C-alpha cells in the first residue's frame, strides 16, 4: 500500500516537515486533555504521518526502496486522526503557524483513499449523497419543524422569490432538541419584516459532514444544487444559523451571494433599529462555536448582540474567542467516539458553571445538542440557549 501524497497540497507536505515537536499544541488540544496518548495529539499525528512519508518517500526509501506500511500502524493512525473535533485550537497556538485543521482534513482524505476510516462513514456518505441529509430520512421532511409554529403563513416561509434565503442546515432540521433554533429565527425575521424564504425540501446538505470525513471531492453535486436553488429564488443574501454550513459556503462554494451567519445578520438588523429589546435581567455567558469563531473569525457580532440587550449581564468564560474550548461536538467525533465527545462536553460544562451565569448562549446547534445531551446524561445542570432564542425572548 503506497501513500498517495497528491491528496495533500505542497503546503501541507511542507507543514509536516515544519513541525518542530515543540509540544505547544499539547497544552491546547481538548482531546489530548482527556486521552493522554502521544498519537492522538497534533504533534503525534504529524510525526506519525512524517514516519509514513519517510518510509516510502524519504532518503533511505529512495536508496533502498519504499518500505511497506504496516496495516496495524495505519489503522491506529486512522483512529487517532478521526478522534479530533477539528476545533482548530492547535493551529492558533502553533509557533510555526501550521494550518492544522486543514492538515487534519487532508490526512482524512489520505485515509479515505487507503480505506482506513470509521465504520459509520459509509452510512454518512450514503445518507448525504442519496437522501441529501445526514440522517437518511426523506429530505422532504426537512421543514417539518415548521409545523410546531403558531400562525404559520400560507406559504410556510417557502416562497418562489425572496431577497434572503435562510439556509437551515441538517441538524436544526432533523433533531427535535434544536428545532427551536430555526423556529426562533423565522419568528424574528418575520417580526422584523424581512423578505426571506426557506428552501424546504430543496435544501440539500451543505457537504460539511463529508468534508469532515475526508470526502471533499464528493460534495460537488451538493454545491451545484444548493447554489442553483438559491439562484432560483432571486435572493442576494443567504443567512445561516449553522456555523459549519456558513463556513462551508464561504470556503467551498463559489458564489456572489452575501453570506451571513445569523449573528451577523441580526446584529445588522439591531443596528438598523428593526429589532428592539425590552429590559429583562439575565446573566449569560457565551460559547464561541469553533466553526464560527476560529474557522470564520466571527467573535464580535454575537457579543455585540448580547451587549445590545438591556438587563443582560454578560460574563466571559475563562477561555474565550480564539481560545474557547471545543464542546466536543465537531469533526464527526460524536459518531466515532461518543464517550470522548461527552468527556469534552463535560469539561465545557465545568467552564460554563465556573462563570456563575444562568445560561450559556451560543450560535451553533451542534454545540447546543452536545452540551445539553451531556448535561442530561451526567445530570449536571446547565441551561443552554441558541442566541436567536434569547433574542426572541428579549425582543419587544
Amino acid at each position, binding site marked *: 500500500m503506497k501513500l498517495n501524497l497528491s491528496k495533500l497540497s*505542497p*503546503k501541507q507536505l*511542507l507543514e509536516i516537515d515544519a513541525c518542530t*515537536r515543540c509540544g505547544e499544541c499539547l497544552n491546547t488540544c481538548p482531546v489530548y486533555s482527556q486521552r493522554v496518548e502521544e498519537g492522538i495529539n497534533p504533534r503525534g499525528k504529524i510525526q506519525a504521518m512524517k514516519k509514513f512519508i519517510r518510509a516510502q518517500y524519504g*532518503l533511505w526509501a529512495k536508496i533502498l526502496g519504499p518500505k511497506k506500511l504496516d496495516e496495524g500502524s495505519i489503522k491506529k493512525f486512522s483512529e487517532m486522526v478521526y478522534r479530533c473535533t477539528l476545533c482548530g485550537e492547535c493551529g492558533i*497556538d502553533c509557533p*510555526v*503557524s501550521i494550518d492544522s485543521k486543514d492538515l487534519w482534513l487532508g490526512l482524512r482524505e489520505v485515509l479515505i483513499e487507503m480505506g482506513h476510516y470509521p465504520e459509520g462513514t459509509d452510512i454518512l456518505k450514503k445518507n448525504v449523497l442519496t437522501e441529501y441529509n445526514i440522517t437518511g430520512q426523506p429530505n422532504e421532511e426537512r421543514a417539518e419543524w415548521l409545523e410546531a409554529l403558531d400562525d404559520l403563513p400560507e406559504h410556510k416561509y417557502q416562497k418562489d422569490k425572496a431577497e434572503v434565503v435562510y439556509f437551515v442546515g441538517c441538524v436544526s432540521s432533523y433533531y427535535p432538541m434544536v428545532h427551536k433554533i430555526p423556529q426562533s429565527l423565522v419568528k424574528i425575521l418575520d417580526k422584523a419584516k424581512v423578505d426571506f424564504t426557506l428552501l424546504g425540501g430543496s435544501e440539500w446538505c451543505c457537504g460539511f459532514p463529508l468534508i469532515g470525513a475526508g470526502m471533499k471531492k464528493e460534495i460537488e453535486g451538493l454545491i451545484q444544487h444548493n447554489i442553483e436553488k438559491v439562484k432560483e429564488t432571486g435572493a442576494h443574501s443567504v443567512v445561516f444559523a449553522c456555523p459549519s454550513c456558513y463556513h462551508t459556503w464561504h470556503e467551498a462554494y463559489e458564489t456572489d451571494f452575501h453570506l451571513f451567519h445569523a449573528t451577523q445578520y441580526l446584529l445588522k438588523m439591531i443596528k438598523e433599529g428593526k429589532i428592539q429589546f425590552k429590559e429583562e435581567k439575565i446573566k449569560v455567558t457565551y460559547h464561541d462555536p469553533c466553526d464560527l469563531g476560529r474557522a470564520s473569525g466571527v467573535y464580535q457580532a454575537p457579543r455585540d448582540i448580547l451587549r445590545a440587550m438591556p438587563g443582560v449581564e454578560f460574563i466571559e468564560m475563562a477561555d474565550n474567542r480564539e481560545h474557547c474550548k471545543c464542546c466536543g461536538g465537531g469533526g464527526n467525533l460524536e459518531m466515532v467516539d461518543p464517550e470522548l465527545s461527552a468527556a469534552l462536553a463535560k469539561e465545557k460544562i465545568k467552564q460554563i458553571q465556573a462563570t456563575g451565569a444562568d445560561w450559556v448562549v451560543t450560535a451553533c446547534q451542534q454545540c447546543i445538542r452536545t452540551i445539553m445531551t451531556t448535561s442530561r446524561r451526567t445530570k449536571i445542570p446547565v441551561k443552554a440557549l441558541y442566541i436567536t432564542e434569547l433574542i426572541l425572548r428579549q425582543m419587544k
Partner: protein
Amino acid sequence: MGKHLIFYIMFIPSMILFIWGMWFRISLYLQGKIKGVEEISPGKKFIILLRKGWRGFWARPGWYIKVLIIDVIFHKKLFGQSFYRWFTHTLLVFGFIATFIVDMIKGFTTGYLVEWSHTIPALSFVHAFETGSIRPFLDFFLEFFSFLILVGCVLAIIRRFILRPNQLRTEEEDITALTYILFLELSGFFIEGYRIAHPEVVASRIYLANFTPASANNWLSFGGYFLSQFLRGIRINADFLWYFHVLPSLIWFVYIPHSKLLHIFTSSVTVFADRSKQ
C-alpha cells in the same frame, strides 16, 4: 596546497550536497496537488509556486520584509508564549544570521577587496577593515554574535535536559542538533584561542583567518582570548584543529535538509503563508 584551495575543494561539494538535499525535500512537497491545477510534473509545479511567491512578494515587499523581521527572525508569536523559549530561539537565530553577515563582510573585504585595492586605488578604503578602524569592530562583533549562539544553545540544552517540561519529547534529532551546534561553537572558540595563544600558527597561515593580519587587540575576541590563557602551554597540530572545526561545519550544511533544522526554511514558509491569510 593553499588553505583557500583546500577549503573550496571541500566547500563546493558540501554546497552541492546541501542544494541536492534541499531539492530532495522540495521535490517531495511537489508531489502534493496544487488546487485548480491538473496533474503536472514537479518541475512545472515548482515554477507555478515560485511565480506565485515572486508576484506575491513584489505586490507588497514592505509587508514581507516586516513579517520576515518580526514574525520569522524575531518570532513575535513565540514571545507571547514563553519568554525563555523566545530568548533562546532569538539568540540562536539572530546569532547565526549576524555572525554570518559579519563573517561575510570580513571575508569579502579582507579576502578580496583588499587584494583588488592593489590595482583599484578607489578601493583603498577597505584597509580600514583589515588593519584600520573598522577591524576591531569586526573582531568584536564576530565574537559577540558567536557567543550569542553559544548562550542560546546552552539555554536550549538546559531546558531540554534539565528543566524537562512535560510538553517536550526528546528524540535523536534533538540531541544531534543541539550537540552539533555546541560542538561547532566550542571548537570554533577553541581553535581561535589556540591561534591567539600560538602566534606561529598565524605566521604559517594554517587557518584561513590567518590570511588577515593578526589583530592588535586579541582581547576583543574575548571568547578565544579567554581560552588562549589556558592553551599557551599546550601543543596540538594546528592543521588538525582546523579540519576539526571546518569539516564538521561543512557537514553541518549537508545535514540541514535531513534534520530538524530544516524548519529554518519550512517554518518561515508556513509563517508567511499564515500571515498572508490575515
